[in-house]
């Protein structure tokens, strides 16, 4: 069917044994810190929304959380206290790691190219059962869907971090700003959560992507996985490896010839 099926057992074995580093420790820690914060912030945030006019949260969830935290005020205080810790640590990570992690991440992992655009045109239709036969263009370390989601997350996170404190620091803002902050806050959260289901499903549940899940702990994926799911990244890694091999062999050759010349001079 495709090229990988024709690989020999030995080749496949070596691909499976070889590991590539996909995530660095900073990204892994920030990711799991973010997961922890969202686990605390999302349920409490949803439970705060009480207005029957908005009709978002069922009454039993509202009452359950209010009883658990001891009233509306305590629930809100918990929500924004965790929220401020989240903002502080996340921003700390982003700004401390600005040059070392954030800019390289944005430059290498987030920028979309022609293949990504094509992927975006084909993949959603394939998920709906259309354009079945068409091959998907090779993907980077993150596929086009993940790249698009990363923009949603960055934008949404910014939206949450601006609109949240506006509502907490209530003395300093006029009512109209606080009125606007509410839909901004909800929409920012929704922008992230709408695709969070897919993110969690693909990362933690979908069997084909099992390695992606464990890579979020170890930081590493096998070459086999990289070749199948992130071909472009794999070939890039291969290129780097070959360049390195060339470099080393040139050095060795140069040294050998130098010593040979020296020997000849003697």
């Amino acid at each position, binding site marked *: 069917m*495709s090229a990988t099926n024709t690989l020999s057992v030995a080749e496949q074995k070596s691909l499976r044994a070889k590991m590539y580093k996909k995530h660095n420790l900073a990204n892994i820690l920030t990711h799991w810190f973010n997961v922890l914060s969202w686990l605390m912030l999302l349920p409490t945030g949803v439970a705060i929304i009480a207005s029957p*006019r908005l009709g978002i949260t069922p009454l039993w969830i509202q009452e359950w959380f209010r009883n658990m935290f001891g009233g509306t005020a305590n629930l*809100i205080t918990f929500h924004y206290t965790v929220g401020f810790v989240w903002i502080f640590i996340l921003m700390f990570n982003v700004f401390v790691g600005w040059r070392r992690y954030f800019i390289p991440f944005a430059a290498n992992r987030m920028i979309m190219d022609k293949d990504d655009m094509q992927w975006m045109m084909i993949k959603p239709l394939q998920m709906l059962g259309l354009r079945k036969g068409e091959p998907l263009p090779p993907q980077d370390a993150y596929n086009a869907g993940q790249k698009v989601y990363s923009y949603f997350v960055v934008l949404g996170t910014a939206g949450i971090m601006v609109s949240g404190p506006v509502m907490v620091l209530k003395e300093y803002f006029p*009512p*109209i700003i606080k009125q606007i902050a509410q*839909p901004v806050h909800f929409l920012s959260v929704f922008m992230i959560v709408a695709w969070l*289901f897919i993110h969690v499903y693909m990362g933690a549940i979908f069997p084909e992507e099992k390695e992606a899940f464990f890579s979020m702990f170890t930081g590493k994926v096998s070459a086999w996985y990289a070749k199948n799911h992130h071909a472009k990244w794999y070939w890039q890694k291969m290129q780097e490896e070959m360049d390195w091999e060339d470099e080393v062999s040139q050095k060795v050759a140069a040294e050998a010839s130098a010593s040979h010349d020296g020997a000849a001079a003697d």
Partner: protein
Amino acid sequence: MANDTKKRYGFVIDVSRCIDCRACMVACSVENTVPYNHTRIWVHDQGVQGDWPNLKRTFVPYNCMHCDNPPCTEVCVSGATYKNKDNGLVLVDQEACIGCGFCAEACPYDVRYIDEQRGVVDKCNGCFQRVETGMMPACVQTCVGGSRLFGDFNDPESTVSKALSSASSAIRLDAKRQDGNSTGPNIYYIHAPAEMLNLVTTDKFGQMEGKVPEASEYTLSEEVWKKLIIPVIGLATVATFGVQAVFFTKQLVEGEKEFEE
């Protein structure tokens, strides 16, 4: 009369006894340390009416009506303002309030104000801190003419119930809500002259101008919420789950071959 609270605290105001001395306004501000630029209680002057020599002048004191169906509590996003289930008073939890002012816009009587210094909404709380200890609200205790009465409408022996049952006439300033029901205000005006009924059918109510008796309207932000944002959120959620369901079912039916390239 829809109410499921244990007590139903409210006011009975004898309109014929009010002389517009405004002692209630002062007492309220002192008791509740209301900022100078705000008040929680008003006395509406209907002005001189009729032809000389048959002149009449009516003063209508009012404050939060502690409605049975308050429109203000419904628009509060966090539930910071609520109708107390024990005593029926409409209260604001100022620790939870962010002062966005949705409730102030929703109130047909305009009795809520935004305390700019604390950034929260404030209003008449029925002097709950006094009522709890067995005292009357400041405005009631101070009322020289005995115009204001306070008590529990659910208790037939209370002052307000007795005053109401012995009164020759009683009206309420009902405002129609969006759903067509009355707000069910808990201030009863007794011995009110016929002119006061104008308040129910015209919009001459001082600070309330344009509010009573019009139905409470959806603000622009509410319109946007109800007609645009909520449907979009609903659709997007359904679409997200729908796509995943299709994806998942396909995977179950076809095995994993589609993803092996």
